[in-house]
């Protein structure tokens, strides 16, 4: 299997770096505070957006360190997954910020255990074309028009049911003659073959 192309250095903004430096500093941030930050970050990233509501939280007097470092650590997690940085890159980035070994290994372990989840959450962000999930169709045969013209032939009325973002439903409706429908099907088949050829040819 091929690994994804990865970058070897992490780009972190000055604000994030200084916040992380503070979080990793044994003398300025207590171990308990650090653990609280780490726990909250992985909790927040794990939570399913659909099932959660905003619950007011009791304020803990921690000198604002938790809030300050929480966003920075969360950003580090997300950016490292987004950039495809593996554990060693993150480790060296945190080493550059003077993190002690115990916090470092703990954080990297937490990141690795959450990596797949963050990856799929990142993947679900974005604009996706609607998916066709169902189709209704009807065949109309026109024998004579209201103006008295004869013929006209068969017309297909097709409704494609689609699923859009966040499970919204949509519809695409069109009508076409038999020839047009055949043409459409041929083109779709061609497209399928094209994709299969691309996927198998390497």
């Amino acid at each position, binding site marked *: *299997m*091929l*690994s994804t*192309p*990865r970058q*070897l250095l992490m*780009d972190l*903004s*000055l*604000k*994030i770096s*200084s*916040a992380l430096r*503070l979080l990793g500093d044994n003398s300025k941030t207590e171990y308990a505070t650090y653990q609280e930050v780490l726990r909250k970050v992985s909790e*927040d*990233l794990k*939570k399913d*957006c659909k099932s*959660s509501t*905003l619950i007011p*939280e009791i*304020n803990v*007097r*921690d*000198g*604002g360190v*938790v*809030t*300050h470092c*929480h*966003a920075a650590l*969360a*950003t580090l997690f*997300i*950016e490292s997954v987004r950039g495809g940085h593996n554990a060693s890159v993150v480790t*060296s980035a945190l080493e550059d910020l003077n993190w002690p070994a115990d916090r470092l290994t703990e954080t990297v372990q937490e990141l690795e255990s959450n990596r797949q*989840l963050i*990856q*799929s*959450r990142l*993947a*679900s*962000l*974005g604009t*996706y074309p609607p*998916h066709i*999930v*169902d189709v209704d169709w009807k065949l109309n045969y026109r024998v004579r028009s209201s103006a008295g013209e004869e013929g006209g032939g068969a017309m297909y009325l097709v409704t494609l049911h689609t*699923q*859009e*973002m*966040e*499970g919204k439903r949509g519809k695409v409706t069109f009508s076409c003659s038999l020839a047009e429908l055949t043409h459409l099907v041929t083109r779709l088949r061609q497209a399928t073959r094209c*994709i*299969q050829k*691309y*996927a*198998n*040819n*390497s």
Partner: protein
Amino acid sequence: MEEVDKILILTLNHLGCDIDEKVKSVGGFGIEEVVSGVVRCIRTINSDCELPTSLPQNMAQRFRVAASIAQAVKDVGYPGDVGYQSLLYPNETDLRKIFMFLIEKLPKDTAAVSDEPLNKAALIHQEARRKLCASLTQSWIPAHCRHVARSYATRASVTNHGTYHTRQFMSKPYSSVESPSKVSPGLRTYYENYSRRITKMVGYEYLIATLLNSHAIQLQRDQILPKNTEEEGKSEAHTLEPLVTEDVQLNPLDVPLSGWSPLSSFETAQHMIDIKESEREVNLGTDVSAPEAGVTTEEQIRLKREEQLSRLQTEIGNVTNKTEECTQGIQDAVDALAKLTDDLIKEERLKEETVTELKMKQRTSSLLPESAANIQRLQGALKNSEEKMVRLQQQWQAHKKPLEEQLSQLTLEASNKKVNKEEILAEMSELRDKMKAMVQDASRKETALAQLKGQVEKMNKDINRSVYTKRIIDISAKEAANNERVRQVYRAVAAVHEGCGELVDIVRDTGTVQREIADLREQVDLEKSKKVEENLTQLKTDLNQVKKENASLKQQLL
């Protein structure tokens, strides 16, 4: 010829033809095999081709299809003569030529071996192919089951689980919280007591997008203002403060609309609570007054609420003023205290000085009555102390020397150690750089290895070994040309080769005659193999059938 036929049959089978194992040579091909082989070759060369792989039963249609296949062979670039007869009445030599040409033309997937294994575009293509392959092999899930399947899957994919779980990249405005040690004291108390996590401010669904967005903005800002960030941060804090107080004092009702800054969201929450409480109060009030007043109109409630609001506003104003006054008072008191403490210390020092002076003066005054004796005593004491002084100085010198030597030695050592340390530090950083570079290199090589492994796996299926041997020979020739020593050896070998060549020429001359004989024999065989008579009878029967078909068609017409 047998070797060639083996390769041809193997290749055709690989393309999907179903050629019987008993068939050993091209001469043994039936019409079906010929047509399907040729058509499959053409399809592989040119994917747009829509020819059928088998011939229809009707004789006339048969001829037409055969003619179009022959045309396709010509279109591919076959230089020799080809027509429907070469497919329907095949002759071994022509057929072999056609197949050899077509197989030569087949696209070679080995050509994809690139010299640059880490080409970015190629990697992206490969990844895309891998993903496409994966999603093509996925099993289909009915649309109404997809979100259920997703909740059990370890990772959601759009191709497998539909778009139910996807959302737009929407972020909310968010300015990150400053480090509590850097902000002004007013803001610090806010941060320490009331700041909330970003998740609470923007909500879970916007968390990732918001963080990515704000980080991108910060990076951009870092690029533009790489050094002035601290000053900028300060100025930001300065501009923030008055804005906030204005909001609080002037029109607190507008705060919910004014944005999502951490302070305002907190304020919003507080206001919501206040408003709710006041509403409850109002409701209670109406409940109590309901039986007396009868009907209470909306207008009254609104008026009451406004009244309450204005009351609360003035209260807030009062409280703020009071707080400010108190803070001022505390500040003043602290200043006064510091001043007084300073004064106290000064006074105490003055007192000590005076006390020591007093003691001196008391002693001098006690010496005054017996001045002569006292003076002598004092002189003796002075002498003694002078002698003592000299002695001590000698002792001091004796002590000082070895210590000084030791000191200079230690300083020297220390400086040496310092230099050593610096060297080691430099070495360390160098090693670290090297390490990083090596890690980089290693991962690059890993990727290359993985890629090459993939290619090797795919290559194993390939049968056209001669292409590889040829390539290997080419490469080694190139290598030889590059190397100085090998070049000399190569030259010597070439000289030997030349000598041998002459010998071979002589042998060849004798061989020519033998070959001519063989050629003549072969020609006789060839003429026999063309199966002219057989083909002629086949053609006659086909002609008869066409005539019959035509006659029957005429019959139908009549």
